[in-house]
């Protein structure tokens, strides 16, 4: 990047707001998907919305691609830098701007940490519902970009259901306000499209969130089963009984073993563990919990424990939330997948994953949001064994294909990013992808905002609208679409 541009960026954000030293730039070369790395030309850390706008204006004028970055905990390479591009880190934009309890709204800057929102409103008896397992480090801006979920999304919905307004810096540096504190504003729901767009449509600089009143009681039940089939059947029956738990999480033997070793949650050693959390008015929770207990017993649960105190409840969750990180104790390396299947397909798909895992000779641990059918198979391998990484990647892809075949999705919460752009065509046909690109062309005709993510084949926006014509190389089978 031309030194003149570096100087100009420095003039906007100040010496402390700009990183251009090669050694320091390396800190930003990847996000949570660590096998892909690109060193950017510069990292800027705006301290205000005005800084942010000015930085984007420079990028636009010079046609320099930029990538927004929250905490870099993304698991699909969404915040992977572009070579020769700028990373815009939002960590200094971390103020909570407004807390409006009577209307249950909070307005924040994008760099605010997810858990900080809940801590801020907790004294009033409220919480911010979307709770990714990374909530103590990831940012609201990153959550908005990924439409992040969490264990409690089964009942409370995802980030998209809790964002009411967005102030954006568009890729040309213009600022727009979408939505706001009031609901149903006239016009297109562009806010709905921005949420989950993975930084490809612009950068959120102010976010209006809905916070939710804490329920009267919360109860967590732990049930041990002989098989994931039994546990899967219990999940379906609970939902079919008309009960909507706040969360239903499942862990298999391998993930229980790892979590136990890491946090000693006191889980029973079993082949499938369910955590079922109910919340709401006390009388309703008590009655529904009786029914859940019955259903679990009926499906073969051999041990059932109801957490008796808030402390016990926290321990039960600690094991679940630590499960990914704990895998390090079981295998040196792992790939986390993030497929979704219809809930009823759970037992069958889990069986087929086991078959794939046996055929590949690699272990797969399962810990996931069972109520939503959002699987997180962890493919365990050892990078130091030649060829094993490749086998693991193939296995991970086969699992995703299985999910799509079962009527599901290639990603439930981690996003497409760089990791899965090549899988997009397993889920969507060309006209579907082209139609999504119309949105991209409206927001970012120059493709400067996080280019080359999400879509396998970005389209030229000036291009005449028309059907996709395969490239001669594709037709000849020489090169694939992605």
């Amino acid at each position, binding site marked *: 990047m031309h030194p003149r541009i570096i100087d100009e960026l420095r003039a906007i954000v100040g010496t402390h707001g700009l990183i251009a030293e090669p050694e320091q730039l390396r800190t930003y070369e990847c996000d949570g998907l660590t096998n892909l790395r690109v060193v950017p030309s510069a990292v800027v850390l705006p301290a205000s919305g005005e800084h942010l706008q000015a930085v984007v204006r420079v990028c636009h004028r010079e046609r320099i691609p930029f990538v927004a970055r929250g905490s870099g905990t993304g698991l699909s390479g969404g915040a992977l830098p572009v070579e020769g591009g700028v990373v815009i880190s939002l960590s200094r934009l971390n103020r909570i701007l407004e807390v409006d309890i009577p209307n249950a709204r909070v307005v924040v800057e994008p760099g605010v940490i997810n858990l900080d929102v809940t801590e801020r409103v907790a004294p009033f008896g409220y919480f911010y519902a979307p709770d990714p397992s990374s909530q103590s480090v990831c940012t609201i801006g990153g959550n908005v970009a990924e439409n992040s979920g969490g264990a409690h999304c089964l009942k409370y919905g995802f980030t998209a259901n809790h964002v009411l307004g967005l102030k954006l810096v568009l890729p040309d540096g213009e600022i727009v306000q979408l939505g706001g504190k009031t609901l149903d504003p006239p016009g297109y729901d*562009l806010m709905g499209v921005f949420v989950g767009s993975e930084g490809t449509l612009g950068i959120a600089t102010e976010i209006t969130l809905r916070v939710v009143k804490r329920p009267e009681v919360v109860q967590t039940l732990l049930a041990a089963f002989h098989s994931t089939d039994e546990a899967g059947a219990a999940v379906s029956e609970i939902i079919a009984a008309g009960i909507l738990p706040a969360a239903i999480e499942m862990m298999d033997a391998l993930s229980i073993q790892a979590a136990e070793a890491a946090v000693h949650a006191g889980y029973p050693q079993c082949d499938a563990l369910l955590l079922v959390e109910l919340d709401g008015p006390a009388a309703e929770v008590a009655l529904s919990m009786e029914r859940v207990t019955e259903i679990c017993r009926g499906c073969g649960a051999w041990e059932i424990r109801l957490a008796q105190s808030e402390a016990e409840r926290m321990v039960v969750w600690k094991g679940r939330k630590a499960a990914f990180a704990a895998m390090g104790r079981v295998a040196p390396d792992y790939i986390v997948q993030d497929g979704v299947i219809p809930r009823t397909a759970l037992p069958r798909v889990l069986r087929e994953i086991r078959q794939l895992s046996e055929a590949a000779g690699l272990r797969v641990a399962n810990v996931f949001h069972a109520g939503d059918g959002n699987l997180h198979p962890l493919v365990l391998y050892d990078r130091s064994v030649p060829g094993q990484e490749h086998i693991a990647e193939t296995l991970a892809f086969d699992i995703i294909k299985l999910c799509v075949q079962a009527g599901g999705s290639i990603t439930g919460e981690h996003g497409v990013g760089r990791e899965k752009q090549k899988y997009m065509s397993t889920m969507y046909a060309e006209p579907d992808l082209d*139609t999504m690109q119309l949105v991209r062309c409206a927001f970012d005709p120059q493709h400067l905002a996080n280019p080359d993510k999400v879509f396998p084949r970005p389209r030229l926006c000036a291009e005449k609208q028309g059907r996709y014509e395969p490239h001669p190389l594709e037709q000849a089978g020489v090169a694939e679409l992605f």
Partner: protein
Amino acid sequence: MMVDAETLQADLRALVGAEHVRPATAADAIDGVPAQVVVEPGDAAEVAAVLRLARDAGLSVAPRGGGSKLGWGNPPRRVDLILSTRRLDRVVEHAWADMTATVQAGCTVAQLQRVLAEHGQRLALDPLWPATATIGGILATNDSGALRARFGTLRDLVLGVTIALPDGTLARSGGKVVKNVAGYDLPKLMTGALGTLGVITEATFRLYPLPSHVSCVRLSASEVSALHPVLLRVLDSTLAPSGVQLHARQGAAPALDLRFEGIAAALDAQLEQLARLAPGIASQPLAPEAWPTAEPLWDDADLALICKASVLPAQLDALVQTIRRVSAPLRLSWELLAQAAGVGWLRLAATNEQALLAALSILRAEVGRLHGSLAALHAPSAVKARLDVWGADESALPLMRRVKEQFDPQRVLNPGRFVGGI
């Protein structure tokens, strides 16, 4: 370019079959703007083909669902073709064990609910006129009711859509599972777009169980200012109502209606808690069938404005005071049916059009100060001709225009009806 009516009808007959094309009549006019032809495609591919033909011929298209009233929006600049979804009326799949359903756009809400009820489920939404309103129509108008308090609105319930674009592209977006973040969320973009970006041919929804028991209560007082604090206390409590609605009218006592769903024994405890939150406020049970809906606001609406108003929950009282203050000197009668979320229907009736216009412009300014919005969805045509029904002053308008430009560069779909003349 305008093709002659004969050639056009012949082309359309070739596409969808002779019996599904007919010349439009006076009854097909939209907001007084006459149409040429009504066409009823039989599947999504035919919808796409009709749109492409219209685009190539330089014609405008108004999608029509339940069809009787296409009142919402600015009057169309032109209506050449009415594309009716009447024949797209099937529930394609009810995956009841997964609690999702896929349904064609022309299926009525009531028909869908009947099919879902066979397995004890529902689309947790109570839009206007369910017997005639279609799935495509409620999506296009983003119509919801009291249940939004618990289940959200269409944007929260729709998982996937299939849409036909004016260039003949048929595209699917979203999916059939509750959780899915692959690609842009076009189902949300289509929701509330008034059929100006594409024609929805099919949609998939997440479902909820039908409640085993429903209890409703009506709280009444002589003034809204006595009920509004109760509404805010309920929102700030651990009560979990599925609907909370404030009903205020000129010259009548206001009411605050609450709806609870769930296991009967658990509901009693909630009702007791409610009583503690509303000391000294008269309360009586309300039969669930008697739950007030907005439909009656349209009765005798010749000289009435019916608006969708949106303010913050804490501003509902202020909204009522403002309506009262503005209406009195203009001799308007008014009625407001507002959800606790702050979104409501406002009816203003007058003896002359001038008063309606004056009231709307003052109210819009006031609501704007409360950071809310006021869109006039029904208005006498003489009034409609003199106002922008949406009244939106949006910084996002240029961006919205760019989105329209991408999806429908030749302004085929519902031209002029949407925000900013889109």
